[in-house]
């Protein structure tokens, strides 16, 4: 059973989000990059399902050549193959991205997709458009469920769970199927040093993405980092000596005791 996980390279932001002067992007000059948490789980699941069912796991990304780094992380986690739909680094919009992924996923296989399970992160960590997975699935005429927190493959069926208030909804999808997964689905493995070294030597398939033409669309004007209005915290004290002040606060001001 073959699987494909679609992933995106995003900045590994920490304590503060700083924008570039033109307000078009996050200033990444001091940042590393990562696969977002939902998609790390997508990669892990793709690998586990392929391993359990004698198949091949592929990681695929649309992005600049720098996204090789995230694809290599996928390979180091023991995905078998990696494909980059190489762009010039400009932000692609969701309809274009979905069209290009769907094109790449069907290109070498005619009408029938060659894989059985296609995984996306529920939404990308950065832009969070919440639609690429659905649009790809529609183009490939595959069933799709978003928000998946648990997945089991049995007898040609994907059993997918989604958390709702007070429980979970269970869906049963005939394979081939597509899902948008959330962090918590599994514990993604850490790639060993050795695996990382080996992944550096593996080759990454490259394709030119085919975007297609679309009328209108959503166009970014600028980004804004909401200013936190609060200043520094009121320091109640240092170490255990602060405890009486904390108790006063909890009892008198916050009334939680």
């Amino acid at each position: 059973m073959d699987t494909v996980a679609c992933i995106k390279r995003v900045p590994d932001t920490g304590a503060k989000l700083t924008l570039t002067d033109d307000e078009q992007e996050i200033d990444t000059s001091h940042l590393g990059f990562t696969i977002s948490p939902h998609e790390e789980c997508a990669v892990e699941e793709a690998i586990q399902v392929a391993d359990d069912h004698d198949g091949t796991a592929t990681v695929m990304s649309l992005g600049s050549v720098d996204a090789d780094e995230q694809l290599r992380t996928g390979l180091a986690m023991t995905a078998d193959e990696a494909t980059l739909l190489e762009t010039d680094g400009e932000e692609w919009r969701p309809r274009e991205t979905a069209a290009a992924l769907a094109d790449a996923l069907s290109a070498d296989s005619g009408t029938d997709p060659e894989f059985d399970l296609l995984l996306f992160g529920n939404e990308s960590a950065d832009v969070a458009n919440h639609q690429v997975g659905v649009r790809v699935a529609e183009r490939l005429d595959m069933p799709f469920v978003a928000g998946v927190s648990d997945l089991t493959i049995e007898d040609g069926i994907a059993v997918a769970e989604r958390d709702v208030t007070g429980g979970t909804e269970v869906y049963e999808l005939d394979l081939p199927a597509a899902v948008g997964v959330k962090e918590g689905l599994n514990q993604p493995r850490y790639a060993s040093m050795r695996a990382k070294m080996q992944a550096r030597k593996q080759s990454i398939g490259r394709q030119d993405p085919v975007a297609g033409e679309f009328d209108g669309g959503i166009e970014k004007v600028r980004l804004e980092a909401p200013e936190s209005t609060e200043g520094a915290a009121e320091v109640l004290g240092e170490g255990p000596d602060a405890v009486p002040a904390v108790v006063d606060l909890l009892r008198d001001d916050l009334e939680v005791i």
Partner: protein
Amino acid sequence: MILSLVEHAGGRPEETSLEALTLARELATATDAALEAVAFGAESAALGEKIGDYGVETLHHVGDERLDTYAPEAWAESIAQLLDATDPEAVVAPGTDRGQEVLAHVGARRDLPMAANCLDVEAGDVYELSRQRWGGSLVEHACLDSDTKLVTVAEHEFSPETAAEPTDTSVQPFEPSLDESAFRVTVDRVEESDETGVSLGEARVVVGGGRGVGDPEDYDKLETLADSLSGTVGASRAAVNEGWRPHDDQIGQTGTKISPDLYVACGISGAVQHMVGCKGADNILAINTDPEAAIMQKADYAVVGDLHEVVPELNDALADER
């Protein structure tokens, strides 16, 4: 006309759908357009009594009994056919799992762009809108250019508001033609959770532990603190990645969003992705050894110190209080 998707439980509208209706009505008022709604399942007819307060003139009630169970493609196909029949200027849905998924399907079927998790939308030939990125840590200002605009509304960013004047909602059955393939994805069953105790999202007090906790056993101290404040324990992603806590406990962009009266953040540095999960907290108390940690700028109160010393001392003091 502006069309809004209303989710409901047994004919009672969900809070997030009322939020979406509020934004949809603003759009309708600004453009002098009618506000209409669409809802699914036999029980949705009862919504007519409830959403007039929000200014809905017409409810398109899709009562096909196969739709008593949620089926994303059937919902989307129905809405797509309703677009063909009524040609609304925009479709507004709540930014829930269902809202996002269904509207994205509609977008795919009618080749329309979609703007997800909007905070504010200004009507016009082209919509000028703001929407959440990074789980709400960043705002994107964008233009949405389309014949029919598809918009989802960020959850819990504002309170639902009823219209100045209530309307009598006319309930009109809508009967889309749906073949079996529209039902290939459907909720097969719902499993109830056997969790007891307060859930993280609803707790009035949350005690969060991050990498600074150091090992899984030391969460006992945080559990004791949470218990004495009738609260529950949460964690940062760093702690979850260490395997100290289950992912269900994670607070933040890719975990749970909390909105307690008090959040006690122990050994947590205050990364944006963590803080976006607790921006609903009324008060934040940080316990951290590092006076320069980012959380010291983001919390309301702080104790500079080792949580392994401060929390047990606090537990003793709270025991004495009783």
